[in-house]
């Protein structure tokens, strides 16, 4: 299977691990991730204002590319996934946005939201299956107590993201089980870590990161995994807590023996 793949800005710079391990693991699972040609930064923040157009164009370019290839578009960074998925929803359901974006882009064929946008974790769950993944694990992470940190972008708003139950998600825990480790449930796994504030209010960002890390620690977690480079940075650098934080792909690669 070959899927189109949108790595996003940070995966090419500070979060190379997330990208490398993601690609290697996919390869091990029999999937080729083909990078979208000339992709542009998604903007990292979904433009909430109902009348924004320009800030949605880069996402639509990537989506249209995948449509041409007739492939689902796989994302891996939570922020990219959030932005591209919601822009795709807009292209499906909001006529004014669809018309204006298509007028602007002047593609050979108008783009109407045909591409299926899936996050890497959804690919594992829905395209490969966690049972299947479990069979391919050569190095189960036995005895490791891992807390999944979902953050905001993957889950909310649920009526658009349709990722998992926004208050009681299970996909990352199922993933942790599939790679042979023990998932740790804690209350703050779906609360904001304050990553966006890291530029202009570090104190706030670290206060919020502490809350998340402590919440996981109380429940006995030995490490935290996340899908978001910004969350990773914030939980790791801005919190006083001493839990190691990894990208989920790193542990996946480890379990599959391709690290």
């Amino acid at each position, binding site marked *: 299977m070959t899927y189109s793949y949108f790595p996003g800005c940070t995966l090419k710079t500070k979060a190379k691990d997330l990208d490398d391990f993601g690609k290697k693991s996919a390869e091990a699972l029999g999937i080729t991730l083909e990078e979208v040609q000339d992709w542009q930064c998604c903007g990292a923040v979904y433009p909430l204002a109902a009348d924004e157009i320009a800030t949605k164009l880069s996402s639509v370019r990537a989506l249209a590319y995948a449509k041409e290839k007739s492939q689902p578009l796989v994302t891996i960074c939570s922020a990219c996934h959030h932005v591209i998925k919601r822009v795709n929803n807009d292209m499906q359901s909001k006529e004014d946005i669809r018309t204006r974006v298509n007028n602007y882009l002047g593609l050979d064929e108008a783009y109407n939201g045909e591409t299926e946008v899936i996050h890497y974790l959804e690919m594992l769950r829905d395209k490969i299956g966690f049972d299947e993944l479990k069979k391919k694990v050569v190095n189960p992470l036995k005895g490791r107590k891992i807390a999944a940190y979902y953050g905001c972008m993957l889950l909310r708003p649920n*009526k658009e993201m349709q990722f998992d*139950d926004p*208050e*009681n998600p299970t996909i990352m825990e199922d993933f942790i089980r599939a790679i042979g480790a023990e998932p740790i*449930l*804690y*209350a*703050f796994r779906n*609360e904001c870590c304050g990553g966006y504030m890291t530029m202009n209010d570090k104190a706030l960002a670290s206060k919020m990161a502490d809350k998340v890390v*402590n*919440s996981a620690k*109380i*429940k006995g977690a030995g490490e935290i995994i996340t899908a978001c480079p910004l969350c990773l940075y914030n939980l790791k650098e801005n919190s006083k807590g001493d839990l190691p934080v990894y990208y989920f792909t790193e542990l996946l690669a480890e379990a599959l023996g391709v690290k």
Partner: protein
Amino acid sequence: MQRIGVFVCWCGSNIAATVDVDAVVEAVKNEPGVCHAQNYQYMCSEAGQGLIKNAIKEHNLTGIVVCSCSPRMHEATFRKTAEQAGLNPYMVEIANIREHCSWIHKDKKEATEKAVILARAAIAKVNLNTPLRPGESMVTKRALVIGGGIAGIQSALDIADAGYPVDIVEKSPTIGGKMAQLDKTFPTLDCAACILTPKMVEAAQHPNINIYSYSEVEAVTGFVGNFDVKIKKKARFVDEKKCTGCAVCTAKCPSRKGGNEFNCNLDNRGAIYIPFAQAVPNVACIDSTRCIHFKTGKCGICEKSCSAGAVNFDQKDEIIEQKYGAIVVATGFQISDVTKFDEFQYTKHPDVITSLELERIMNAAGPTKGTLLRMSNKEHPKDIVFIQCVGSRGNTCRDKTYCSKICCMYTAKHAMLIREKYPDVNVHVFYIDVRTPGKNFDEFYRRAVEQYNVDYIKGMVGKVWENEEGRLTVQGVDLLSNRRIMLDTDMVVLAAAIEPSEGVRNIATMLTASIDTNDFLTEAHPKLRPVESPTAGVFLSGVCQGPKDIPETVSQAGAAAVKVVGLLAKDKLVTSPCTANANELMCNGCSTCERVCPYGAIDYIDKEVNDHGKREVRRIARVNSALCHGCGACTVACPSGAMDLQGFSNRQIMAEVDAICK
């Protein structure tokens, strides 16, 4: 040619303010067939009806059109008026110029024009009306009550006391319903069991009441006065006649891993069980999904321990067929799914519970024997937080749009009972609004605040989590002081929305009773016919119609019973004459109509017909007017146009179309 009278009602200013009633009279008085037209302030009043009667006699009218409110409101009234003046009641048509005209349009010219057109359509129709004679049907003098909670029990008792036999069909092994699970009741704080169980016993012992417990309604056919109902009596694997309710078997059953529904799954029960001590009937029941005997063929301890020899593993489901004249739906409610609201950690922490679970914890027969304990560690709590409106009053996919009505009062009750019994426990209530309409209700709530020092906080809770000490932290807001509230507490109680019971959709479909967008059964009129379903012969009792507390449920149950008694007291019912009818000369006996009829009202006979002098025996459709409901499906399906519907004939509807499009 008909002689038609047109009567335009002002409905006070309801119609007259937006429709120029004089202009309507003027516009219709020269319509074909019209020989009299007038308007009056209130046509439905005695004077108005008198006016119609006089005009019928004076002008020798053969048909009338009343331009007034919806026919759903007063068609029956005016038909009766016509009948009193010697006119066939089906020679009356209503032009709905209130709900469909004056109330929705502001421009007087526009509304008047529309009223005239609606009147013309009605006149065109009445020109083609023919006198119809309603049929008669017998009434089976027996009532069915679906659901054995307080609503069903009360309805059944009232009907039975009036002298008619009643069957209660209850899906669980005992009657009693949700009320049996409650500890105390507001606003008097008397014990629920103490007032409910005598009624349960009374129902069981009443000579006119028969209880089918552990049974479900399987199919309903027929119509008002003549319902044919199939009841499935599920196999409980215990002979009801032999079991004495000694409960030896329930104590000895080794399969004890499954939750006890009566205690909201806070503790476990055996596979053979009696839901609670005062169950009616007090007969054990085997849950075959949990029973070791049904899984492995071994065990059989209950059978061996039963001195009455009542256990019977070979019992089968049984279908009972019974005729009824009237049906009361009293299917009640259930607690809505709070797992969707996991910001409150209900699925994650045992100390986050619903209010119904708290009822069981507070109850002497409950999982903690009535001692208030944290379910996580069985310790005495120091603080309790109540969260109101969980799942009520929202417009998102996880919310109900309505107010569940009972939560404000039961939370005040819980708060008060806890403060009374355990003065050391601090009670906090997060509320959006406190709604306490009802006799002595607001006084009750104020007592909780003023005498029992319950801490009411106006605002919602956003998140609950377990903190370092293993207690719960509640993050909320106090809107009155506009500040964040962080409370450490031991228990969180969610006032979960209530919703109609799961099976109600299925039952409504069987009864062809309509339900609203929230699955509550619809009443025939929201104000004037609140206990009747729009389907004749089906009555509504209790929360299946909308959220209500016990006193309201009991009053509604009584009202529904009176309606049933009123129906059963009649020997015969008048049936609508608006039924289908096949033109013998046009029918080609193709059976198409038979296949679309939902009531099996059409069959075929071989009959000699005289087709323009040619006599021959043909196979033609025959409609049984007692079974026909008059939907008209057959009239459209009929390829030769032989089938028509009295009162809504092809020509009549075409004439209305013509009049509107003129």
